[in-house]
């Protein structure tokens, strides 16, 4: 399988702190990837580098065979890289429906969306994304009035509305109810097979349920790659990361 995202020698330093250090990684097209690691392992920095929110100190990022290391994030988004945020970000003075429509706007492929009628058509075509994440009832509410979990669902729906080829999810399950997590799982599983998903998550149960490959980062470096089962059995991972969570028994349970 070819990699849709190929990272080579990627380094990002914040002053003296090196968040991502000489990383080589490939995310296979159509894969369901998870990136895990202890706090400060550089997971979110990695997502920010892929999405274009940050520029690397050195190294290259290739997306779909082209070098996007210097490509602005709006352009990367239009090329098909969508993301959600650790702190769900929405446009708070607009309604939930407007949030989705604006997120879909640059990807809709139609011209003249600034006209009322075209915009309404676009907005109607986005209703399915609200349904997917289960916030149809909230469509007319201002996004600023949403509770945290609802806001996260909206953030995810906004990423889905971009019709992405690569979907980056930054701790999507954090702060969600069980029902919310179930919906999220269903939404990720319902994605077309050719969509590549990269999820950064702490919850190993969620990771096992979603991902087919797990990448473990530690201190900005690659520690291990494998299936969830292999990672759970990996001794070095256990010491670096899973050891923090408790007894190995926890991992056994998860499996």
């Amino acid at each position, binding site marked *: 399988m070819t990699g849709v995202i190929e990272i080579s020698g990627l380094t990002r330093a914040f002053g003296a702190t090196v968040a991502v250090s000489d990383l080589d990684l490939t995310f296979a097209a159509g894969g369901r990837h998870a990136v895990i690691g202890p706090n400060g392992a550089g997971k979110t920095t990695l997502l920010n580098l892929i999405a274009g929110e940050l520029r690397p100190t050195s190294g290259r990022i290739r997306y779909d065979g082209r070098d996007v290391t210097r490509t602005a994030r709006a352009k990367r988004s239009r090329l098909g890289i969508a993301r959600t945020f650790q702190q769900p970000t929405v446009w708070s003075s*607009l309604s939930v429906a407007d949030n989705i429509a604006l997120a879909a706007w640059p990807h809709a492929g139609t011209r003249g969306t600034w006209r009322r009628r075209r915009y309404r058509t676009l907005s109607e075509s986005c209703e399915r994304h609200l349904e997917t994440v289960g916030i149809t009832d909230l469509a007319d509410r201002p996004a600023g*009035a949403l509770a945290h979990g609802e806001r996260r669902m909206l953030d995810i729906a906004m990423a889905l509305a971009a019709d992405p080829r690569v979907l980056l999810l930054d701790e999507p399950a954090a702060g969600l109810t069980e029902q919310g997590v179930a919906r999220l799982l269903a939404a990720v599983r319902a994605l077309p097979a050719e969509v590549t998903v990269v999820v950064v998550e702490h919850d190993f149960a969620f990771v096992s349920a979603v991902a087919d490959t797990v990448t473990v980062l530690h201190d900005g470096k690659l520690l291990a790659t494998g299936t969830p089962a292999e990672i759970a059995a990996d001794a070095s991972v256990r010491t670096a990361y899973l050891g923090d969570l408790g007894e190995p028994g926890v991992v056994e349970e998860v499996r």
Partner: protein
Amino acid sequence: MSAPTSPVTPSGSADPSVETEPVMPTVRASQTARTILSSPRLRVGAPATAAAVLLLIAPSTFDGYGIGLLSKALALGVLAVSVVVLAGFAGLPSVGQAAPFMVGAYTAGIMGQHGHGIGVVQLVCGAGAAAGFAAVTGLVVIRTRELAFLMTTLAVGELAVAVAGQWHSLTGGTDGMYGIPPVRPVPGTALLDSDKSVYWYVLAATVVVVAVAWRVLRSPVGKLLLACRDHEARMRSAGHPVTLYQWLAYVAAGALAGFGGVLMCTVNEYVSPADGSFANSALVLLAVVLGGATSPLGALLGAGLIVATRDWLSGPFPGHGPLLLGLMFIIAVYALPNGVAGVKVRLPRRPGGSA
């Protein structure tokens, strides 16, 4: 200035500020009255109707000075609406918006002195020249944010004033341009040689341009700008060319300001670098704060209040206009954090209450 909850949305339909406090079940009538009084339609409609009535009966009740002030307030109001576009919607609080206003005014002045006295042509050319000015300065200004944006817009404004003061051959220097002949609104109509006729012309032009701005701001374009203001980074992540939007908003606001400048030149028959002064920029920013940052109508009312305070109310207190303005500003910021447009109608909870 930023409202803790959501500011009034441009659509007006999903108004979050509708009161949701618990109401005693026994006071249905009061509750109904409250619902009606806080409906967006009435809250926009009532002041709009009051303002329209005032504007229509003004020429027959006010003296020449009063009518002139009202015309000035309208011209300044158009400038204030341009600040609504920038500060309220695009989230770019410019403190140099008087510069494109001055460019528009000089364009009209120069055209008038060279025999091009058709009002509509002046308006189009003045708005175009100001848009061109904004298009060029915007390339620099849009790259800055927050404090740097304030400083850059201030610098651009002051530079424009300095250029206007130095360029004698074109602008007449710091003395300004005197004796600009009155205009004809369109070819074949009478010369606007009285306060009243100028007033009707300025009123008509203001209504048209504010209606256009209102319509655009309520369209999906307004939503794009509000989203850029709410969370610019998220807009970029969603794939929107935010910088292009902001530049276009800056150019459009420049054109609006220039339009106001042309009207001001028609009213005053005089243009000077003072038209582009920081004082003017600050005044309209005050008008927008008074009116509520996202309300074009509120900005017009705010401009009216400011001109009334500075030039009319200060009559009994000569020389204290700025003091009155300062007091009004303090009161406005404390009492009306969301501007006149953000005022909620409160009725007593129980029947038999005093009001």
